[in-house]
C-alpha cells in the first residue's frame, strides 16, 4: 500500500515579492489548517464507524487530507523562511492563529452530520483544487494537482452518501435534514474571500471564487435533487470567522488533544 510517510521533498519557493510571499504563506497555511482539522475530525471515527467499509473509507479520506496537510505545511514553511517545520506549524500555534473555516472544526455528530460537513467541504475543495492546479505558483499547483484526484473521490463518496441518506429511510432523511439545518450556515465562509485571498486572486495566484460558484452550485443542485431534498429553503445567518482566527468553542478542545504531546514534552523528537 501507499504509506503516507513517503512524501515528496518540500517544493522550492518561486520568486515572489515579500508582501506576496507573506500573503501566499497565509493562504497556504489556511489550506493546511483546514485539511488538518477536517482530517483530525474524520480520524476520530476510526474504529467507531457505522460499518466496517465506511470506517475504512473515512480513514482513507482522513489520510488523504493529512497527506495534503503535510505538503502544504512544508511549502508554508519554505515560504515563511524562518526554519519552522511542518510540526512546528501544526502543533505549536495557539487556536487564534489557526486559519481554518468554521465548518471543518464542527464536531462529527452522527454519520449524517459527518456526511453533510464532508459534502459541503468536498464540493468546495474539489472545485478549488481543480482551478488551483493551474495556478502560476508551481509548488501550489503541484500540490493541487496531486490532491485533486483524491478530492474527486471524496466528493463522490460524500455525494453518494448524501443521496442515500436523503432518499433512504424516514429516519435517515430526518437526520440528514437536521444536519443540513445545522451545518448549512458554515458553507458560505468557504468561498468568501478574506483580504489575503482577495489580494492573491487579484494577482491571479488563487482562483476567483465567484468563477467556481456555477460548477459548485450545479453539483450541489444535482446531488440534492437525487437525494430528493429541496434546495434548503432556510437561509440561516452565515457564520464566518475561522479564516480570520475567530473560531467556535470546538477548536480549542480539538487542539488540546492534537497538541498534547508536543505541549507536555516540548522540544523532543518522536
Amino acid at each position, binding site marked *: 500500500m501507499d504509506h503516507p510517510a513517503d512524501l515528496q521533498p518540500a517544493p522550492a519557493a518561486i520568486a515572489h515579492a515579500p508582501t506576496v510571499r507573506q500573503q501566499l504563506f497565509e493562504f497556504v497555511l489556511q489550506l493546511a489548517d483546514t485539511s488538518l482539522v477536517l482530517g483530525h475530525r474524520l480520524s476520530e471515527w476510526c474504529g467507531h464507524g457505522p460499518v466496517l467499509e465506511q470506517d475504512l473509507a473515512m480513514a482513507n479520506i482522513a489520510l488523504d487530507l493529512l497527506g495534503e496537510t503535510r505538503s502544504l505545511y512544508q511549502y508554508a514553511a519554505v515560504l515563511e523562511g524562518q526554519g519552522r517545520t511542518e510540526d512546528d506549524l501544526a502543533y505549536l500555534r495557539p487556536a487564534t492563529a489557526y486559519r481554518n473555516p468554521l465548518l471543518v472544526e464542527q464536531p462529527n455528530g452522527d454519520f449524517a452530520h459527518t456526511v453533510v460537513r464532508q459534502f459541503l467541504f468536498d464540493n468546495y475543495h474539489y472545485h478549488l483544487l481543480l482551478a488551483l492546479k493551474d495556478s502560476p505558483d508551481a509548488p501550489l499547483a503541484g500540490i493541487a494537482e496531486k490532491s485533486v484526484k483524491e478530492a474527486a473521490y471524496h466528493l463522490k463518496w460524500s455525494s453518494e452518501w448524501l443521496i442515500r441518506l436523503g432518499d433512504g*429511510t424516514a429516519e435517515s432523511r430526518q437526520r440528514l435534514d437536521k444536519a443540513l439545518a445545522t451545518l448549512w450556515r458554515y458553507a458560505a465562509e468557504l468561498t468568501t474571500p478574506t483580504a489575503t485571498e482577495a489580494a492573491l486572486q487579484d494577482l491571479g495566484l488563487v482562483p476567483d471564487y465567484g468563477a467556481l460558484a456555477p460548477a459548485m452550485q450545479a453539483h450541489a443542485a444535482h446531488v440534492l435533487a437525487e437525494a430528493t431534498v429541496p434546495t434548503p429553503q432556510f437561509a440561516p445567518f452565515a457564520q464566518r470567522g475561522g479564516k480570520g482566527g475567530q473560531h467556535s468553542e470546538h477548536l480549542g478542545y480539538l487542539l488540546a488533544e492534537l497538541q498534547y504531546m508536543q505541549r507536555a514534552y516540548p522540544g523532543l523528537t518522536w
Partner: protein
Amino acid sequence: METLEKDLSRDDQFQARIDADVRIEPKDWMPDAYRKTLIRQISQHAHSEIVGMLPEGNWITRAPSLKRKAILLAKVQDEAGHGLYLYSAAETLGASRDQMLADLHSGKAKYSSIFNYPTLSWADMGCVGWLVDGAAILNQVPLCRTSYGPYARAMVRVCKEESFHQRQGFEIMQTLCAGAPVQKEMAQEALNRWWWPTLMMFGPKDSESPNTEQSMKWRIKRFTNDELRQKFVDMMVPQAEFLGLTVPDEKAQWNEARQAYDFGEVDWNEFWSVVKGNGLCNHDRLQARVQAHEEGAWVLEAALAHAAKRAAREAVAA
C-alpha cells in the same frame, strides 16, 4: 452403517489430502468439526483485528507528529482491512458476517485478550507494534501455509502488512530510547506493562490447550503454543537489550545448553481472568463495538432502502 463407512472413507481421504499438503477449498467436502474449528478461529481472528483498532485508535488524535499520526492512522486502517478479508474468508465456510458480529457482541465469540489492556502512553504505540504485532506475526506466518486455502491466502496479505507494522513499532521504541531520559522512561514503563500480556498471546500451556492436537493434525496450526512462546522470547530479549531496555523478568537468561532463553512463569490466573472478561478494558472494548454497531444500524438500513428504491426505478425504466 453404509453412510458411516462412506463418511469414514471421506474422512480418510480428507486427511490424506491434508497430509499431502493439498489446500482445501470452499467447495471441497470437509468434516463438520474442521469447518467449525476454522469458523471459530477465523472469526476470532477477524474480531481481534476490529477490536484491536480501539487501543491504537486511542492515540490517533494525540500522535506527537504529523508523520506519526499518518502512519498510525494507516496502520489502524490496515487492521480494518484485515478484518474485512478475514470475515470474507469465514464467509466462504458458510458463516455470515451478521452472525459473526452478533456472536462478538453477545460475548459468545472471543477476540485476542491482549486488546483488553489499556494504552496509556505514546510508548504503548511502540510496544503494541513491536511486541503485540511481533507476537501476532509469529502466530500468523505459519497460517500462510494453513490447510484452508482462503484463510492461507488472506494471511499472506495480512502478514506482509503486519511486518510493516512491527517495524514501525520498533522504530517508535528506537526513537524513544535514543531520546531524552523522559522518553526512555516512557519506553521502559510501557515494556513493563506489555511484556507479560504479550507472552500470554500464544495461549495456554500446551498441556492445557485441548484444541492443539486436532488443529495440528489438520494443519490448521503448525506449531504449539509453547514452541511459539519460546521463539518469541528468543527473538525479543536481544531486541530489548539492543534498545537498552530490560524485560521485566529476572529469570529471562540465556541458557547455553538449551541454546534458548529461560524465562519465568506467566501469571496464568491473570490470563484466565482476562479471558473470562475481567480485564480492565473488556467491558469498554466490547461496549465500543456494540455502540458503533447499534448507532450505525440506521445508516445500513438507509443504504439498503435506497438501493431497493433505485433498483425499483431502474426496473420501471427498463
